[in-house]
């Protein structure tokens, strides 16, 4: 529908006091944001908490929102900042060297890997496990790409990484997922 308002227009309308605009905005993004948080954090309670916190901060900062910033990026930046804080408090991140070592082990030539016919259920299960096992940065990059449909630049903007770094993280993530399917 051509007359449908954009996210940015809705956000500005909400900042101006239009509650219906917020409800529409919320309906559009609730699922994507929730799945991003749930799959990133892997714990429902944490996802619930940060989901609410993300919206809460967005609501609080509504008057500072400027339409130059894409709404999705704005929302996910808030969520990502909360996720990073949470990870930082929970456990230490894997160092770059560790990540590299794991990646080298996983990035075996394709011919070495046995091809298996996996059932649909098994495929989904393995993807789920693979996602859970990804290092945080790779999982975030992967989810921002696949769940939120963002490009390299946008992912970089949200995570504070350069384009090439994002690409590299996606590559690592893919390699790990592939390794999970091959095992």
């Amino acid at each position, binding site marked *: 529908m051509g007359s449908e308002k954009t996210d940015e227009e809705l956000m500005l309308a*909400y900042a101006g*006091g239009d*509650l219906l605009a*917020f*409800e529409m905005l*919320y309906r559009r993004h*609730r*699922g994507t944001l*929730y*799945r991003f948080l*749930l799959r990133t954090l892997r714990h429902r309670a944490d996802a*619930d908490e940060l*989901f*609410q*916190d993300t*919206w*809460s*901060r*967005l*609501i*609080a*900062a*509504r*008057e*500072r929102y400027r339409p130059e*910033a894409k709404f999705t*990026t*704005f929302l996910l*930046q*808030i969520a990502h*900042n909360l996720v*990073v*804080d949470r990870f*930082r*408090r929970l456990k230490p991140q894997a160092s770059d060297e560790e990540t590299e070592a794991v990646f080298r082990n996983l990035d075996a030539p*394709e011919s070495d890997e046995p091809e298996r016919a996996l059932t*649909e259920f098994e*495929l*989904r299960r393995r*993807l*789920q496990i693979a996602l859970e096992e990804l290092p945080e940065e790779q999982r975030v990059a*992967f989810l921002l*790409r*696949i*769940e939120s449909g963002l*490009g*390299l630049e946008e992912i970089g903007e949200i995570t*504070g990484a350069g384009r090439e770094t994002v*690409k590299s993280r*996606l*590559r690592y993530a*893919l*390699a790990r*997922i*592939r390794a999970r*399917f*091959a095992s």
Partner: protein
Amino acid sequence: MTARDPDDLLRDGGGEIGDLYRRLPRYEPPRRLDRAVLNEAARAVHSGKPPRRQRWIVGVGSAAGLVLAAGLAWRIGHEPMTKNDAAMPTASPTVVPVQPIDQFSRGKHEAPAGTESQAPSLDAARAPAAEQRAAGAVGNRQDQPKPLRKQRAESKPASAAPMQAEAPPPPAAAPAPKAFPTDERDAEQAKDADKTQQGFSGGLTGQAPAAAAVEKRATTTNVRGRASPTLPSSSIELQRDMQLAPSDWLAHIRDLMQQGRRQQATESLRLFVRAHPERRVPEDLRELLD
């Protein structure tokens, strides 16, 4: 699963893995979260502006109450001076300063419990005035404080001047009770401003006006030439910080760190996070949030 290059993921839909991902369970937030978020959004919209109005109304109401009290106090001192005045019906010029209170009463339906408490006291204040006028008419108190009244009567012009101009002697005590609650409110406001850094649902909407109010009061106080010992300077500084561009704000926080003002740097950074939730906190400042 043969995808090896991130370009596979960057294709529309994310390629093979993207297809598989979309076949995973599509989790949705529970309804209680929907309710909580939507309620909060509604609260922010509905309670964002009225409180400011209510605070204003309370202020005006308090000021009007003080003026009335001062006027009544002064009037009590003058009441029996002339029999004509004493015998006058209730529609005396003293009603004139009550005008703001009527405005306040009209706006009362907007104001919550806090402001309503003003109204009865104003009514109660009117009652003794009427009683005393009646008493003056009977003349049973006519002779008591004569010397004092006489002095004032000599200095008072015959015409009814505005209440504020007439008020000086008795109201002299009035600012004293006002001064303490004002400072107390200042401290409370400052506390609120600090709380917003940690708080969850308060939000910036309430915070900015609160900080502004603190600053405004501080300015007023300085204009009056009165010290404000209870006004926390950090609140004013935080308010100033909020005016900075994000990068300047972060630089200012670093400056505070270098000056050894760690507590203030922490407060400022917490406020920064609330004001700019989409901004990443630089690594060198993260420790302040722990």
